[in-house]
């Protein structure tokens, strides 16, 4: 008996290898068209994946840790991910769509109603990858806060702690707003002339160090009640943020032992509610066999002029070998994967057509979508509004 794995893909530009846009079939001008993204998400849905994530940031991509790098040979520019997610949602029907939205500099109220709206337009398939923005260069786009230059070698613990504390507050505000309309708040009672029962709408009265938000939301409760909150985490502070605030965490182990150690560490953090789903991120370079995959990787590196590096482990090999690895790390407690295709559509199609087939053959992946919402696909129940619980208990 194998527990089925959850599989997601992370979409970004032409793929996660910096030379991906130069691959044959990449059509790089289409990166700024809806059809490019619609085709990728449709492919992911054909592969029965749980969800796609869409990357975003409040500044251009850069090889420098903070600020522009002046390069002209790499993909620069991105769409707002929440809008992009909404644009592809009506063209799909089962797959979850999880855009990135930043918690720093943005208004939690706007982010919350944007994700709730995505849940409405997708019929319950919305998620949110909550991300912080610690860069000085991005802060300068807003001109409200002065951040130190981000140096990954010498992180300022207080700055990082603040960013994640603010992110936790932003998620808390969103979750309260999503619950601020009870499911049956709309009554349309002609006899009394009342459209809503205002006793089933709730002020959230959030007050924190970074903002206060009164509520209620302007958007009625969405199909999932609570859209799925996810976060990428590489270290203790973001693990704590994920344990406190998220439904799914993406971690970046480089081998099975590290996966086991991270799972233990994350599981040891106190948490309310359903257990956190732990996914591992992997950059994947695939081929018909190991040799072909290695050849592709080498060719991409050569075009890029440098060997690929990543925060996540980089897998190079065949679909069967990747399936072996995914099942191996599963034994360390990893419940799903967010695969970052090195180049699209090639690596995406190897995932949706081959990796899924191999896993299915081993009883570790679905043969059909078993639920209509993202929470359903992840095995998460639809929660009752916290305010409803409070009034009925």
């Amino acid at each position, binding site marked *: 008996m194998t527990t089925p794995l959850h599989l997601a893909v992370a979409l970004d530009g032409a793929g996660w290898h910096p030379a991906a*846009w*130069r691959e044959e079939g990449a059509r*790089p001008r289409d*990166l*700024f*068209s*809806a059809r490019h993204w*619609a085709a990728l998400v449709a492919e992911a849905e054909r592969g029965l994946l749980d969800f796609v994530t869409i990357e975003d940031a*409040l*500044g*251009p991509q850069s090889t420098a840790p903070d600020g*522009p*790098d002046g*390069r*002209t*040979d790499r*993909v*620069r*520019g*991105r*769409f*707002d991910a*929440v*809008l*992009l997610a*909404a*644009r592809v*949602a*009506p063209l799909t029907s089962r797959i979850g769509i999880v855009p990135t939205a930043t918690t720093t*500099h*943005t208004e939690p*109220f*706007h982010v919350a109603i*944007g994700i*709730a*709206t995505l849940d*409405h*337009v997708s*019929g319950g398939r919305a998620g949110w990858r909550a991300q912080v923005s610690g860069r000085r*260069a991005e802060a*300068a*786009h807003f*001109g*409200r806060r002065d951040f130190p230059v981000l140096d990954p070698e010498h992180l300022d613990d207080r700055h990082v702690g603040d960013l994640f504390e603010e992110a936790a507050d932003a998620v808390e505000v969103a979750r309260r707003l999503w619950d601020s*309309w009870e499911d049956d708040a*709309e009554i*349309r009672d*002609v006899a009394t*002339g*009342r*459209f*809503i*029962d205002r006793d089933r709408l709730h002020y959230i009265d959030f007050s924190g160090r970074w*903002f*206060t938000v*009164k*509520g209620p939301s*302007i*958007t*009625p409760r969405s199909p999932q009640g609570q859209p799925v909150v996810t976060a990428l985490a590489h270290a203790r502070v973001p693990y704590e943020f994920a344990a406190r605030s998220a439904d799914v965490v993406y971690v970046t182990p480089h081998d099975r032992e590290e996966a086991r150690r991270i799972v233990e560490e994350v599981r040891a953090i106190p948490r309310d509610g359903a257990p956190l789903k732990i996914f591992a991120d992997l950059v994947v370079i695939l081929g018909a066999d190991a040799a072909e995959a290695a050849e592709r990787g080498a060719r991409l590196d050569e075009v890029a002029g440098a060997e690929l590096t990543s925060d996540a482990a980089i897998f190079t090999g065949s679909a069967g070998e990747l399936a072996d690895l995914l099942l191996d790390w599963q034994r360390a407690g990893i419940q799903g994967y967010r695969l970052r295709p090195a180049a699209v559509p090639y690596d995406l199609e190897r995932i949706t057509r081959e990796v899924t087939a191999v896993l299915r053959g081993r009883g570790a992946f679905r043969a059909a979508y078993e639920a209509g919402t993202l929470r359903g696909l992840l095995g998460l129940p639809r929660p009752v509004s916290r305010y409803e619980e409070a009034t009925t208990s």
Partner: protein
Amino acid sequence: MTTSTDALPRKRVHLAAHFPGVNNTTVWADPRSGSQIDFASFVHLARTAERGRFDFFFLAEGLRLRELKGRIHDLDVVGRPESLTVLAALAAVTGRLGLAGTVNATFNEPYELARRLATLDHLSEGRAAWNVVTSSDAFTGENFRRGGYLDRADRYTRAAEFVRVSRELWDSWAPGDLVADQESGHFVRHGDVGAVRHDGPHFTVEGHFNVPRAPQGHPVIIQAGDSDEGREFAASTADVIFSRHGTLEEGRAFYTDVKRRLSRYGRERHELKIMPAATFALGDTDEEAAEHAAEIRRLQVSPQTAIAFLEQIWGRDMSAYDPDGPLPDVEPEQEGGVSQGRVQVADRAAVAAKWRAVAEEKNLTIRQLVIEMTGRQSFVGSPATVARRIDEFVQADAADGFILVPHLTPGGLDDFVDRVVPLLQERGVFRADYEGTTLRDHLGLAVPRSLPEAAPAATSGDAPRLVPEAVPTAVPAAVPAAVPEGES
């Protein structure tokens, strides 16, 4: 048709569809009333508008639920999506229709909003529009980091600077900056694309924008506001004015005044479209339409809604009075108020006196009085009558077209599109099919030139005091109900 304007080329009518809002214009007690939040409702109305070859679809915004007597107002339709997110989804199910969202400049930052609008323009292949509104309202501000504690003058200059920074951001990628040439290996034309440096009284934005130049260059800018400063802002900056309807004479006066202001900014008359909000009621005959209009009015003003209207004008609790009884002999409160998230009634005593005079003269109950005094439909008649009236307004320079506000979700535009649009097309004043692909094409607006060389001069931020304003709430007596809701 024999009119005096036959000899002149006839102006083309522009039409937009307003998604029914969260005020009592929207009737929910009708069995045909559907969901105000299901995406299917948005799809229905947008596709109907596109079938009717409308210029654009329009969404209002209100960022705090309205309150009456310290409690959430429960008598009207309430609850709506985030504007730009639902418009992005609609871009997937429409092909030509413009997509206009109201987004408050007070509770956003230019970098983020400009990139969302540029994204929407890309995702719709050039169909995005932004209705710029502002707020000085601390009540709404309680949902936001910044709060709403700007004084009136500041809020106006802030909005003007907001639009200015947005345009600098949209211009920061020149048309040829996205190269994406696989052969040469250049993705962008140079290493500093998107560079922006703005230092003004309200915004300091320094760095690099991360969305390539949008198909329309700049999304279409819509502005709603009627004050002198509002008109000046529109004349300098906007592509469309979302104005009040009023009478033919009022419309002509407004039109003449605003178009006259354009020359100060080196703009031509056709570069700013004036599109008042308008409601309508149709019937097979004019008599039937009048009956239909009266029935709609009755549904819009329930007994409870009648009392709520009265309380807003009188500024006090009136719940003890019978809506089907006479107007009570009490005076309005001079200070304070009972409503939040609406424009307040300016002079209660004068408005109340006027209402009392009408009630006495016509011997009306409270509910009959409210029906009499609020929200008469802009166009009532057979399809032929309504088509003729719309054409007359446009040919008489009282408007360039209308933003139609249906009273039903989602089918409230069906009859108009099926029965009135063909008549406007027969009259030769409305397009038989889309002639272009972008909203600028539909509105006859040129794509703005990218002016990177002009950018340094445009970054000082010391703009003239130009004044955008929100559309006022549908407050009785102060504004006809044709005016949409809640932006404050």
